[in-house]
């Protein structure tokens, strides 16, 4: 059992582990603010607000001092090492399952991506443990198509591979990777903020993989 944090041990910018109240999920965060009744904790989460820089993505949650002292929050100085490992197929499936529930992707879209990605990944030797960031997507699709030729309808194969390709692209884009066939563009919003959007290269006519400035 982790040692609960006392009020007098807490400080702003302290790294903590905690249980989120709604669903009992274990989280890691940093104390953002302390008020009279409890602590506000910033939970970094790269899945949120993908137009922001990765360091600014996340959300705030709050725990009362009574909750923390009863065991809901403890000191956790460093991030668990498993969060720094290369992303695997399981991470990608977890991301799209989250996106479906959090409604950052349309339900039917996320469902199709999950089904396509799971089917194609299970065909690989490493299965769901396959590393995604170094994966040659087109080679995998070609192998999947060849292996299923004659056993699955061509339209089914096309559906699975198309969903798999989009699932990988969306997942890598969310993690800040360059996605083949896209360009990054910085645009200025009406309120003056600058955001980066990822657009298909075909729509901009720009060379693939380049970063463009603001459009006139």
């Amino acid at each position, binding site marked *: 059992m982790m040692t*609960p944090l006392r009020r007098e041990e807490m400080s702003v910018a302290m790294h903590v582990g905690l249980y989120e109240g709604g669903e009992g999920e274990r989280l890691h965060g940093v104390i953002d603010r302390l008020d009279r009744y409890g602590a506000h904790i910033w939970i970094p989460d790269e899945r949120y607000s993908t137009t922001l820089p990765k360091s600014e993505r996340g959300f705030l949650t709050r725990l009362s001092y*009574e909750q923390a002292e009863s065991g809901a929050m403890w000191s956790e100085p460093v991030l668990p090492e498993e969060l720094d490992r290369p992303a695997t197929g399981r991470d990608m499936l977890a991301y799209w399952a989250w996106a479906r529930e959090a409604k950052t992707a349309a339900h039917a879209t996320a469902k199709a991506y999950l089904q396509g990605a799971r089917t194609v990944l299970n065909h690989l030797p490493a299965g769901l443990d396959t590393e995604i960031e170094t994966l040659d997507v087109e080679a995998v699709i070609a192998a999947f198509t060849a292996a299923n030729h004659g056993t699955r309808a061509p339209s089914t194969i096309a559906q699975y591979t198309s969903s798999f390709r989009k699932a990988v692209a969306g997942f890598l884009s969310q993690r800040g990777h360059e996605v083949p066939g896209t360009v990054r563009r910085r645009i200025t919003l009406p309120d003056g903020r600058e955001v980066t959007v990822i657009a298909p290269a075909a729509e901009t006519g720009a060379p693939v993989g380049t970063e463009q400035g603001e459009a006139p």
Partner: protein
Amino acid sequence: MTALDAASAIPEPGWAFRIHTLHTSDTCPPHLTGTWHHGGQQPEDPGCALWLILADRAGGIDLALFADHEQIPGAVTPIALHTGLPPDTWLEVAAPVIAAHPYVTCEHTSALKRRRRSDRAARAILAYLIAHN
């Protein structure tokens, strides 16, 4: 209100404990206060609550936590599930998740707070003596 701790007897299947308060301390193991309900029988209190279901099996204690759904009466959300917990420490394992849930009241008894209370009393007595002399 009934007290429940790791030393309490676990009832037959079909009973669920409606958690009201989690009591923790710097020195003693945690315990819960709440009420037992059988077969999904709802209490008169219509408020949402966190429910604990326990089963004493050969491999240890199985524990499930459910929370009432805020909008749908009778529906519950699964919060945590543990199997094969040691009989004497199952509540220590579940206490952090219980403490985090907003439906539960937490009462932590800290040695430091007790000292603070006595300090406050001493200051009040001193202030009274100064004011009335």
